[in-house]
């Protein structure tokens, strides 16, 4: 389902050293409320860890599918949903997929990026980090990147994850 190429990555015609994870995956609505955890080894203390993450599609535009999902939600979440309430389904469109990233180093939590943008270029260094992530030293050892799949509403949702260490 995904492809991991150790040490070398050919991307845009450039060979990149320091790649730790390079993966793609395809999710379905059945994957909602699950986590995907990539654990990797950082062989030596690093100066900068980079995480590129993206997923698509972000939004569900299919009206029939939206209507079904929203009305199912309204029946569940409203106390006594009446016809007016159920007919208001369009006001909840468009529904979105939501996947978020969190990071753990060998000692524990290094932050989470809980926001809605589906394309994220993230980094951690000793004295700075993308909002949500925790700056500090990047010790060698077992690290992990967790993708929390909060919701997949489209028939399929594809993600790409690229983690590498190094200066750019």
């Amino acid at each position: 389902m995904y492809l991991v190429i150790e040490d070398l990555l050919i991307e845009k015609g450039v060979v990149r050293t320091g790649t730790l994870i390079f993966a793609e995956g395809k999710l379905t609505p059945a994957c909602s409320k699950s986590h995907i955890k990539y654990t990797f080894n950082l062989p030596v203390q690093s100066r900068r860890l980079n995480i590129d993450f993206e997923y698509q599609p972000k939004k569900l535009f299919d009206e029939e599918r939206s209507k079904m999902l929203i009305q199912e939600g309204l029946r569940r979440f409203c106390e006594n949903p009446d016809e007016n309430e159920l007919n208001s389904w369009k006001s909840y469109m468009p529904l979105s997929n939501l996947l978020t990233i969190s990071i753990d180093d060998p000692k524990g939590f290094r932050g989470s990026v809980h926001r809605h943008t589906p394309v994220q270029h993230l980094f951690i260094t000793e004295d700075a980090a993308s909002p949500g992530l925790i700056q500090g030293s990047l010790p060698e050892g077992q690290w992990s990147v967790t993708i929390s799949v909060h919701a997949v509403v489209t028939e399929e949702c594809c993600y790409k994850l690229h983690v590498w260490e190094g200066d750019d």
Partner: protein
Amino acid sequence: MRKWIPCELHTHTVNSDGELTLTELAKKARDMGFSCIALTDHNTISGHWERDKAQAESGIDIVRGLEWTTFYGHMVAMGIDKYVDWREIGPKDIDRGIANIHQAGGLAGVAHPFCMGSPMCTGCYWSYEIKDWSKVDYIEVWSEPFPSIEAKNIRAFRLWTDLLNQGYRLTAVSGRDWHGGDCGSDPVSVTYLGIEEDAKDMEKAVKEAIAGGRASLTMGPLLLMQAELEKDSSLYALGDIAYIKCRNQKAKVTVNIDYSVRKDKWSLDDADMSIALFGNVGKLCEGKISRERSEISFEVPLENLKWVRAELYGRMKNIDTMIAFTNPIYFEEGA
């Protein structure tokens, strides 16, 4: 002496999906008349590192926390300086999650329990199975601007009342779930917390106030209540337990309305106002009040009474609604 400080207990910054940095948010909160906010970003504590700067530049206090933004409900961990993990907590494991929050020194609060859930708002509807409600410290009864008229909040208020009736003493708070934006002319709610005048450690003081039920919620004036038992010289305030000697005793319950708080930050329509006392036995009594009459007392029989709270009714934005309510004073038989 105790003072009542206006708090916003549920906020987000750029560290999750908020619009502002913590410093910007704190300054904006100060300009709205708050003297304390809780930083409760989704699933991260990376904003905690900006706390000193934000406090220094805004002059208000910031309580560190985070909002567990999970698949089965949102829970606020209030007053923690370290991360507590939610990712391995399943829908039947929340009691373990709450214990972990407590172990880290925080309070555990159920956030907006009846907010629309997934996929409209992922995990926002509370669906965790709580085995022991006595371990939950508080519940957000009011969420978002103009909370009193929202069906989800009316339902949360009812859940809280049901839990009080079952004997649980969990505190009701308001949390706007503020992402830094504006809300036009909609009234913003405030949780006033009763803390000691000379409190040094504000995080500790805020936690003690919430845990102790010293909280009063309002979209306008500050509502306070005290009780005095017949043949007993002690005065009881919000969150206190009054030990009664015999059930034939009566209590004099006095409600105060302070219209001077957060001056010019709210307005009430010109309409009749009333104060009602509620308890586990339902509505106990009601009386009219006005701008000129800021105090009202009631005689309350204590027979079968486990708790009493005050509610203020009036009109805002042309809608007759509850404006404010207090947390209860509790009654128990004992020495």
